[in-house]
């Protein structure tokens, strides 16, 4: 199929008529920017002065020694401004919004990282900003809600549906169909209607471009495998694009295994048997849905992976067997997080820790002369409440109790 916006049989733009014209304009503005070398230069310059690009590639020597196999390298997207790869996409779309002359941005957010990144971008560029966030995610990512509000954005808790990421996306679309003239929807991942998957993948490709050069410089060769966690798929597509044209590099996407793939409480659209083709949220992909086509409740300890759909680009690469998919359970994630902190002094986000789990399962069986890269999509600071709770940390609990008393709870 050669239809624009399709990857194999996946993707498309299943949009209501009221947005037709908006998408025509967005497609035109994006294609113009993509074809303009000055736009990418402007983007690079912004990312090296406002964020921390290029982000380092860290050789995790202690972890490599611990597993006794492949040399483990970590691509440090946590060192971006706002602490995750989300900034790459958001700043790029921000430059596009300026070109289009719009004055207001809206976004969905799950973990809150995309929301915080969008809020910083809006503050910097002077846009009004509203962030939609599932009520469940507002609870579990409270620090990010605080920062979004302090940055001047309005955070709207979404109470419909499963009160998570997919519902925040629906609500953002409902805003957009009401106010498309001055508003751009900053989609946070490589999902949704065309051109969003292509656009977000393009901005995130900066991760892979850097990583490809860095590993050559530090290790002398290309890695054997590259691991990334997959929510919607933007950090994975970002790093994979640096290695896609080299068939010797195996690409591994890691989804949320939640309480286990047989438990029905997970968010594994491709690694589990529960996904099936569907059309929702403006695009066609593999969804976790029932036989009637109703979307199911997903579960993950990581809000950013707790989503029913997955990038149409990744679904195509999975179907072609170019990307292998696996899943990490909540319990495995906590163990990998603990080990990474103790061995390397690095705190991955709960989302990112999924990629670490699979890499740790495989590193020991590989040769010492091989390298693997783990894409560390973000830092774990935002997860302090969830992680402290999972570790059942006594001194943290004591602190919260005291704060409660201080606030008259």
């Amino acid at each position: 199929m050669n239809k624009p916006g399709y990857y194999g049989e996946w993707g498309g733009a299943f949009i209501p008529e009221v947005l037709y014209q908006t998408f025509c304009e967005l497609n035109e503005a994006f294609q113009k920017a993509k074809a303009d070398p000055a736009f990418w230069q402007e983007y690079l310059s912004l990312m090296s002065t406002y964020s921390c690009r290029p982000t380092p590639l860290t050789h995790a020597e202690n972890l490599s020694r611990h597993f006794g196999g492949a040399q483990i390298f970590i691509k440090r997207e946590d060192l971006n401004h706002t602490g995750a790869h989300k900034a790459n996409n958001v700043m790029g779309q921000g430059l596009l919004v300026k070109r289009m002359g719009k004055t207001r941005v809206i976004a969905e957010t799950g973990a809150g990282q995309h929301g915080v990144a969008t809020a910083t971008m809006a503050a910097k560029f002077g846009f009004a900003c509203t962030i939609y966030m599932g009520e469940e995610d507002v609870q579990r990512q409270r620090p990010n809600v605080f920062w979004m509000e302090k940055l001047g954005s309005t955070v709207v808790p979404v109470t419909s549906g499963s009160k998570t990421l997919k519902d925040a996306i629906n609500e953002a679309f409902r805003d957009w169909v009401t106010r498309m003239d001055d508003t751009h929807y900053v989609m946070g991942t490589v999902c949704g209607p065309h051109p969003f998957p292509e656009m977000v993948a393009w901005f995130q490709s900066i991760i892979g471009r850097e990583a490809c050069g860095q590993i050559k410089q530090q290790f002398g060769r290309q890695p054997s495998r590259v691991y990334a966690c997959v929510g919607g798929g933007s950090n994975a597509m970002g790093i994979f694009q640096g290695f896609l044209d080299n068939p010797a590099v195996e690409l591994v996407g890691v989804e949320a295994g939640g309480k286990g793939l047989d438990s029905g409480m997970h968010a594994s659209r491709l690694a589990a048997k529960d996904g099936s083709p569907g059309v929702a949220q403006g695009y066609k992909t593999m969804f976790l849905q029932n036989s009637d086509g109703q979307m199911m409740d997903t579960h993950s300890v990581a809000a950013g992976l707790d989503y029913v759909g997955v990038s149409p680009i990744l679904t195509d690469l999975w179907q072609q067997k170019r990307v292998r998919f696996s899943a990490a359970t909540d319990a495995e994630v906590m163990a990998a997080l603990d080990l990474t902190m103790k061995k390397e002094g690095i705190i991955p986000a709960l989302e990112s820790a999924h990629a670490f789990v699979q890499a740790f399962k495989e590193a020991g069986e590989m040769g010492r002369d091989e390298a693997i890269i783990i894409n560390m999509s973000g830092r774990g600071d935002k997860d302090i409440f969830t992680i402290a709770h999972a570790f059942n940390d006594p001194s943290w609990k004591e602190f919260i109790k005291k704060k409660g008393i201080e606030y008259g709870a």
Partner: protein
Amino acid sequence: MELSSQIKTALADPDRKILLMTHIVLGYPSLETNRRVIEQMVANGVDLIEMQIPFSEPMADGPVIVKANQEAIERGITVRRCLDFAREMTATHAIPFLFMTYYNIIFKFGVEEFFREAKEIGIRGFIIPDLPPEEGEDFFAQSRRYGIAAILIYAPTSTPERMRELARYSRGFIYCAARKGVTGKQTDFDASFNDYMRTCRENTDLPLAVGFGISSKEDVDYLTGKADIAVIGTRTIKLVEEQGVAAVGPFIAGLR
């Protein structure tokens, strides 16, 4: 008779200057309530009924219909039960019934299988807000094959060129969204609305339905002469929630 001709014939009656179409969310609050509401609607002169098959992600709908979709699903509505209920309605009432739903429901069922069964049931048209003609090759082919009208939507943002393009695919009538946004909120009928209706009329020969925020006799009076069908959606759902099924008949009777 083909749906658009049937609508035009009905409008030839001097007592029917505008037709009324109502919207039902199947399974909300229950099929039994739907049954009694439809009975009252038909008895009080409704001309067409669109039955929404609930979907978990009703992106184009506002809070009232979103909640209705969600609760219907929670209470156990299935596509199968919707189809069986529709079969009963078309057998009981003579007016045209349409299905409104989102594309995934049909896609999962199988596009051709869905058309085949809808034809058997006697459904006259489909309204699918998230399926533009560009994505619906198979759907529009089956619609022509089975003679079930694919009803497309015009929006205030549609250009005249786009309207003509949509009219090439649409059958039965055109559903004009009265304003931007989702279902439910009140619409201001002003000069720009009149311009919009004029542009709609100039760019299709099909009858025009107008929906989104139509809730009173004043609204229906205002639309008379401008549109061919007034669509009442959220208002009757709220009416049943607030005043019960018995309020529907008098409300409908008072609209025209």
